């Protein structure tokens, strides 16, 4: 178990629960009939409070564990760690780009770019086949678009291909 990881997680969660509680303070109180002591802000505050307690527990627990067995600092810098996981970042990047451009470029075009890119990213070195990636990208993007828009009434964004 990564004690340091727990510590970081605990801190993030604690900060999140503080943010949540802060926002919960702002929840409006209903002024009409049927009001009671328990309003729309009560339950979120309870949840936020519980999460805060749990995340503090996590922090304390990991601090104690770290004191007991000091971990060896793993060699290597942050940059290397990121490089090691670069396909993960590339995938997130592709997904972000895909959703961000879907409205503008339209479902078909953004899907084609996404599928092509994602296949390339996921293909192990030595197995990269641009032709198949391209064919799959085009076929599925168009195919799925037409099935869903024409037959199933889903309003997928047409984007640049609007007047087709």
């Amino acid at each position, binding site marked *: 178990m990564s004690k340091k990881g727990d510590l970081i997680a605990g801190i993030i969660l604690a900060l999140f629960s503080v943010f949540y509680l802060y926002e919960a*303070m*702002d*929840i*409006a109180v209903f*002024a*009409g*009939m*049927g009001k009671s002591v328990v309003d729309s802000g009560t339950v979120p505050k309870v949840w936020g409070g519980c999460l805060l307690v749990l995340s503090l527990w996590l922090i304390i627990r990991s601090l104690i564990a770290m004191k007991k067995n000091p971990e060896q600092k793993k060699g290597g810098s942050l940059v290397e760690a990121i490089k090691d996981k670069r396909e993960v970042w590339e995938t997130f990047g592709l997904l972000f780009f895909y959703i961000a451009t879907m409205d503008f470029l339209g479902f078909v075009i953004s899907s084609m770019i996404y599928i092509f890119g994602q296949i390339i990213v996921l293909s192990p070195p030595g197995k990269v086949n641009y032709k198949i990636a391209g064919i799959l990208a085009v076929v599925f993007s168009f195919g799925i678009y037409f099935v869903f828009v024409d037959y199933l*009434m889903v*309003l997928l964004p047409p984007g640049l291909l609007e007047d087709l």
Partner: protein
Amino acid sequence: MKFKKFAVCACALAMAASMVTGCGNKEKKAATASKAAANAAEKWPSKPITFIVTHGAGGDTDYNARVLARLLEKELKQPVVVNNVTGANGSIAMTQYKDGKNDGYTFIATNTVAMASNEATGITKFGYTAFEPVCIYGKQCGENILVRKDAPYNTLKEFIEASKQNPGKLKLGIAMGGSSYVAALIMEQKGGAKFAVVDAGDGGDRMTALIGGHVDATIAPYTLAKEYIEKGQLKTLATLISERSKTLPNIPTAKESGIEDLTVDTWYGILAPKGTNPAIVEKLNAAILKIVKENPEYKAEVEKYDFQAPWALNVADTKTYLDKQRNHFMDYSKYLTSAKKKK
């Protein structure tokens, strides 16, 4: 390098040229714009139309919109495609489409109570004025005030009296913020009723609560209660629409019990995004009126499904009715909105 210079010059020239021609054309543009509008209305519809329904498939708003769309297709000779964009009592769709494409090929199908109550409760910051209203084309058969068969009251008046004698003891199940809540509010404010108001969820849940004995009375659309009334498990005290329904003339209106303001009419309406050509709006309204008033298939469909009698208004009346309903709801908005807590 040379190419770069050439490109820059060309761009500059192009920009200058367009500015010069642009200035001269301003006046011409204004004239052609109004002509274009008239032309567009003449040719309308020249491609498929979309109805965006603000509530989910299977509900009464959706059903009415689809019946209308189906018959409009034959009338306008263009496909009328129906899509649902649901969420937050219709406010999501209304917010998304009110400033959307206003070329006259996208319209919003909704129910007017949702729109008015969204504005009154503060979920949206706009009302019907954010759209170009096209047509109110139907009214719901009416929300009814229901009690169980063994309840000792037979009219709304008796029921309100009973609540005054046992203040805070009779449980009325409603959906907070919705039309049932507004009705309960009016009964309290103008009728002096002293119910204990409890939240009981949407129409179907409220019915279960009543039948299961968890509440003493509730307010629900007649169509949901019909079977139970027939079987004799429930009885209706009154309906909340302003005049007795033609298809259900035996149910007294709540207004008749003496509380003038106690009306909640759910109407079905078509709206156009802001800025849509008024000529197109009129044309669509005319087509809808024709179907509602003259088409026997439409009459049969709505009567069967929802006990509705066909009813539709022209554009001017639509706006008047919408305005009246909005004001009616806004009168109670201070009980519908929530006070922001100071940090």
